[in-house]
């Protein structure tokens, strides 16, 4: 390979690292102090880009260009402050999952607000005055602006380093990272310290968005596009480490550029492979420190003791099942198809709820096993001429095996790192399916995956799905009430105590992860045969997030939460999507639920029932 090309690509990679580093360092900083993984950080980056491009079109010349970038950073910082004060302050003491879901609500709101303000069309970023041409380096053209970015990045790194290590604010920030309460007891107003850090972190994201304008412009997808790369960077570098964020940004950006040239089929996969490898060797990232589970506010109200259904519960469940069994006699075939969709989503959500609540393992990549099961069935049908029935049975088994492998890696970590690693694996799976055209059909998916003749009738398949979904959910319920479920909950509530009473915590968690994966795979198999096709989007991040949101809306603490949430969202979706700004509505609902009714639908109803005296109140000591 020519030396010139190599150097040119290296330089492009370094230039790309600039924006990534800005965004990642902001996220890392915010996480370090507030212990909140701000999913909306990509949205702040997008805001920075839009504000920047708007300002650049108004302000002229050199001053206008660079001034716009700085102003975009400041404005984004202020928007971050608003988010911090309105959405995050009420949830600082809430369990991690609630915080994540709240920031996810913010993403949705910002997406629609951006659509309202700037419209759907992509905005082209203006080129930097005076830096519009290219320089020849070893014969290869390198944009001047890239060189400017490469020159600027070390200054930003230095400025941040100076701020963090040498100033009083930096000392307070580092102290608060370790022990917020003590910092408060020493007379420092933590609320403002948090807000200040949020301002800085958001401003960095906005700066990142504005500074990449000449290279990338602004569009409505850039928030989610950057966020997974940013997470990878922050996790590789170590949550909370600025230096780590810098090195990882450079590593990922350079790798990406070379990946595009030499392994165009694997560009998406590469990043996640690197992350998985780093986490295998250093579970807390290059510069990260060990994270103790439950260190940051996983203590909510203690879980209620689970009980078998009373007569009332039995009766209601039977009634519901009876009602569902009668649907084909009353409803249209459209209703049956809709209900099958809902049922499948319920099973998927229930499997996530199981691992999340009973297992205490917040997985961000659960769609991997749903999609995994679906693809397993589809691949078996397409390539091995497997009979549908066999493929259907093998699908959950394959998903379970996949979860066994993925779980082996992930269970070693806990908290945020566990969540990130599951996310990485699901992205790995998605990019594999997306880019391995020859086998998976890539974006075109796999089609013609229909059930056998005896099942092909809508009503028959409806009953088929109903039986399997019901069985799956009852099975999960049974597991929760079995000794295995007790062991799992013991491991969740106090890993050390559980270990001391003779429970192999890792193994129990690992097995439950595999079980949840298998059940998700069953849902995936039901899905693929109901649709006759499968596409990569079934194992995308957004699918995992849908399930998380559903479980959350329904109520995290009970199995029925996932089911109620899934029914609610699938049912409301038809109606919701008709609205022009449905994301805004959904986002606001999510934020509202997190702040006002954090027990979700089921928990809130239960509380209401107790207050009205319909249900026995349960006493517990803390």
């Amino acid at each position, binding site marked *: 390979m020519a030396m010139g090309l190599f150097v040119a690509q290296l330089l492009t990679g370094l230039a790309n690292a600039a924006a990534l580093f800005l965004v990642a360092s902001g996220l890392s900083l915010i996480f370090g102090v507030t212990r909140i993984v701000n999913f909306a950080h990509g949205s702040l980056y997008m805001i920075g880009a839009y504000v920047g491009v708007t300002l650049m079109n108004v302000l002229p010349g050199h001053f206008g260009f660079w001034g716009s970038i700085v102003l975009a950073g400041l404005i984004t910082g202020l928007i971050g402050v608003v988010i911090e004060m309105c959405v995050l302050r009420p949830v600082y003491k809430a369990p991690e999952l609630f915080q994540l879901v709240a920031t996810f609500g913010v993403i949705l709101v910002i997406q629609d607000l951006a659509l309202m303000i700037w419209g759907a069309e992509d905005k082209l970023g203006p080129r930097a005055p005076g830096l519009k041409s290219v320089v020849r380096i070893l014969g290869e053209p390198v944009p001047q602006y890239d060189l400017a970015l490469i020159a600027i990045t070390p200054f930003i790194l230095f400025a941040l380093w100076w701020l963090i290590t040498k100033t009083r604010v930096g000392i307070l920030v580092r*102290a608060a*990272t*370790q*022990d917020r309460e*003590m910092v408060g007891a020493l*007379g*420092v107003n933590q609320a403002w310290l948090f807000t200040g850090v949020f301002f800085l972190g958001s401003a960095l994201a906005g700066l990142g968005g504005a500074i990449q304008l000449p290279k990338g412009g602004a569009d409505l997808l850039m928030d989610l596009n950057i966020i997974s790369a940013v997470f990878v960077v922050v996790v590789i570098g170590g949550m909370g480490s600025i230096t780590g964020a810098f090195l990882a940004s450079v590593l990922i950006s350079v790798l990406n550029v070379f990946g595009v040239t030499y392994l165009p089929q694997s560009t998406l996969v590469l990043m996640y492979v690197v992350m998985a490898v780093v986490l295998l060797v250093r579970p807390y990232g290059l510069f990260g420190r060990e994270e103790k589970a439950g260190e940051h506010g996983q203590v909510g109200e203690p879980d209620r003791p689970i009980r078998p259904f009373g007569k009332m519960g039995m009766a209601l469940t039977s009634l519901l099942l009876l009602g569902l069994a009668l649907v084909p006699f009353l409803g249209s075939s459209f209703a049956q198809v809709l209900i099958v969709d809902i049922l499948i989503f319920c099973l998927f959500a229930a499997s996530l709820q199981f691992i999340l609540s009973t297992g205490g393992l917040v997985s961000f990549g659960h769609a991997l096993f749903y999609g995994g099961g679906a693809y397993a069935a589809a691949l078996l049908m397409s390539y091995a001429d497997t009979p549908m029935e066999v493929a259907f049975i093998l699908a959950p088994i394959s998903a379970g095996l996949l979860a066994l492998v993925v779980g082996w890696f992930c269970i070693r970590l806990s908290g945020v790192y566990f969540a990130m690693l599951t996310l990485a694996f699901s992205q790995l799976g998605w990019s594999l399916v997306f880019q391995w055209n020859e086998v998976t059909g890539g974006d075109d998916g796999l089609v013609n995956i229909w059930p056998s003749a005896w099942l092909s009738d809508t009503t028959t398949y409806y009953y088929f799905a109903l039986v399997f979904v019901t069985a799956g959910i009852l099975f999960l319920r049974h597991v929760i009430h079995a000794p295995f479920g007790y062991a799992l909950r013991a491991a969740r509530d106090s890993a050390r105590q559980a270990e001391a009473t003779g429970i192999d915590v890792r193994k129990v968690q690992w097995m439950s992860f595999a079980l949840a994966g298998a059940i998700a795979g069953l849902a995936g198999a039901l899905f693929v045969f109901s649709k006759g096709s499968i596409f990569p989007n079934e194992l995308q991040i957004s699918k995992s997030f849908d399930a998380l949101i559903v479980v959350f809306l329904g109520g995290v603490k009970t199995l029925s939460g996932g089911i109620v949430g899934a029914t609610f969202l699938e049912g409301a979706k038809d109606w919701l999507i008709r609205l022009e700004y449905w994301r805004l509505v959904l986002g606001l609902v999510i934020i509202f639920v997190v702040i006002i009714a954090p027990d979700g639908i089921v928990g809130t109803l239960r509380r209401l029932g107790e207050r009205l005296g319909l249900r026995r109140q349960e006493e517990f000591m803390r």
Partner: protein
Amino acid sequence: MLEVSALNSFYGKAHILNDLSFKVERGEVVALLGRNGAGKTTTMKSLMQLVRPRSGQVIFDGTRITGLPAHKAARLGLGYVPEERRIFSDLTILENLEVGRQRPREGAPAWTLEALFELFPNLWERRNNRGKAMSGGEQQMLTIARTLMGNPKLLLLDEPSEGIAPVIVEQMARTIVRLKNEGLTVIISEQNLHFARMVADRAVIIEGGEKKFDGSFSELEKHPEIRDAYLSV
């Protein structure tokens, strides 16, 4: 200086402090005595507003502080040294001290770095070391110094003698006496009666979150049954 009246604190549903009332005069050193689990640490945290008392009030130097956030209590001149020390272990000693720094305050001794390093010479030698590389005694010195950087009027010392070597305990006692001579008001919580007697003017004994005794050490001497009932000997 400090007036605590009918304080009730809870952890969840567990009632920890039960109508606790006592007073501390300016310049006094008061020892809060009691066994493990008697409610000493909860009392300290309730004074500092790290635990929100459910009822009752704390008047500090004429200001009602119950219900204020902890940092406001600190800014009024209440200094808190926690039992677990809670050093910022990633920060150097100088940086730890910087976190505690507040402006000098009227009616309270003003501390400078020099004065503190004179008081705790060990800290000077290790000023650029990180907190995690310190012994228990040094950590205890550092937490006290860190709180003194805020120039408090009233110092809350939660079990300062716990878990440190006997030699250091003596040094600690001398330090507390010196702080008193500088004009600082101090509340120390203790299980160690001997240590408390060395430094304090008065004893408040609590058990099960209730006050059982309030008086001088000579008075306590006259009632060995109180000592036997509420203190481990």
